[in-house]
């Protein structure tokens, strides 16, 4: 794969130039274009669908971006554009998951005290949070992830998701309520 990495002899290139070259089929230009965004995309994907499927969603996003590159109107909005593609893909994954829902789990733990290994205790906490996030509607989860993980202001969240800012506010409020209720129920059990 080393042959694909950017050739420094090509010198600095503008985002506009890279977009133009990538649109013409230059895969190396595309690589240069998206590489700075990988970490953010992967983090967002993990927030939306969980770490175990984040790689798939992030990769699907890159493949879609390549296909859709001719439709990118403003190269300076590349980050937001990639984010929108990813959020659409991730919400589709979540919708598919809701059609095949997992049975909610009860993190009650086993008995006996001696000889316990407890590598799973952290996992139990994490699964409880995943479970709570999993109960959110895809759009609610998207609002939470964009606002808190990606640190976007609500206006930008609205733009990314193609929603009105007021709608984003109400979804965020509903999402936080659901999370609190789910986690409180978890603690109580």
């Amino acid at each position, binding site marked *: 794969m080393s042959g694909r990495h950017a050739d420094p002899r090509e010198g600095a290139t503008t985002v506009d130039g890279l977009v133009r070259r990538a649109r013409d*089929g230059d895969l190396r230009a595309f690589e240069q274009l998206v590489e700075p965004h990988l970490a953010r995309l992967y983090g967002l994907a*993990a927030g939306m669908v969980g770490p175990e499927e984040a790689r798939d969603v992030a990769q699907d996003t890159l493949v879609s971006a390549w296909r*859709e590159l001719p439709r990118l109107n403003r190269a300076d909005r590349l980050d937001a554009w990639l984010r929108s593609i990813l959020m659409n893909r991730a919400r589709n994954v979540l919708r598919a998951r809701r059609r095949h829902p997992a049975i909610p789990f009860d993190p009650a733990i086993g008995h006996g005290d001696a000889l316990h290994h407890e590598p799973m205790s952290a996992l139990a906490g994490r699964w409880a949070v995943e479970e709570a996030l999993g109960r959110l509607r895809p759009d609610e989860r998207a609002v939470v992830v964009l606002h*808190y993980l990606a640190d976007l202001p609500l206006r930008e969240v609205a733009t990314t998701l193609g929603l009105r800012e007021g709608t984003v506010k109400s979804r965020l409020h509903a999402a936080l309520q659901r999370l609190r209720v789910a986690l409180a129920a978890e603690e109580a059990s």
Partner: protein
Amino acid sequence: MIDPRRDDRERLPEPVRDYLGELGRLEPPADLLDGALDRIAALPAPRRPFPWVRGAALAAGAVAVAVVVVGGGLLTDDRPPGASASPVPTPLELSPPPLDALPAAGTVEATFPIPPGTAPALHAHGSLWLTSDPPATLTRVDPATGDVLATIELSTLTARRYNTAPVSDGRWIWASAGGDETIVRIDPQTNEIVDRYPVEAAGYQMLATGTDVWMTDFELNVLVRIDADTGAVISRTRMPIGPAGIALTDEGLWVSIWNAPRLLLFDPDTMEQLAEYRIAENSIKVEVSGDSLYISGNAGRPAERFSIPERRVVAQTEEMNVVLLADRPWGMTFDGRLVRLDPATLAWQAGRQVDMAGCDCDSLVAGTDRLYIGTGAAELVVIAP
């Protein structure tokens, strides 16, 4: 990315904030970009859209291929063969073929009566071992004649519903005694219980390596490792939710979770969790063949093939109990359809309807060269492949 000092946002519950914070700091996998570029390289070059053919670019790029082979499905999309990216293992809507459209799966070689209430659970030491539920007994049967060779009482206590789970390590038979939370070591030469060890668990599935015995107890949410020489409990790992299927490979100890869509990989020595994968929920059993894990379950769960090198579910088919006969997968549905499966795609290659006599069960055991099916009429059906 999450700055707790920011106070102009509504507060996120702390565990969620920590969780998202952790995710935000994750390093992307090293092959993330290369994997995407591999897939892109196999696509047609992007085209500029022409205003008079709106959507032309979309059409040019949208080459999504869903391969569905009779009764089984490869979970593929537009990526080239061998590409490492995995699609979400969402169960496909499959239409398995009618059995009369398939070649007959094996021949019925014999039918023997077996004790009422028993079902085949293990083929080992040249015999078939039947379990009863409850009480906890093992019945040893000659698979060639159906003769009962021995009946071994494991526990007089009322057994828990899921128990016994007999396994062989090549020398001994190990079985969980269910109700009294012990496991027993049985000498197949004498059919005697030679040791009984308290383990504070009832085996849902067990695995015997010769040096260790592993057992999952999905009611108590524990995974127990027992020293095969002394019977001492080496480790008892609490799980957040019920462990069910269990398998050991060079990669580690695989544990499927019944009521969560998860397959976990552990270092068997330290019980450190190495990885976590999404599979369909309601898994019961994991069988290993080569670089594949065949994962069976119930509650409508599809049977799956998990590719160890690819670390993902690559094929699914209808709900069934999958067993391996000479390393080839066979499956039994709850309504008595016995099918031979393609090892890669799980496509149905041959099939046979077995009269289960009203038993809503998938009792199927593989021997060395025969399959054994227990029916609701207290019969054992022997199938020659």
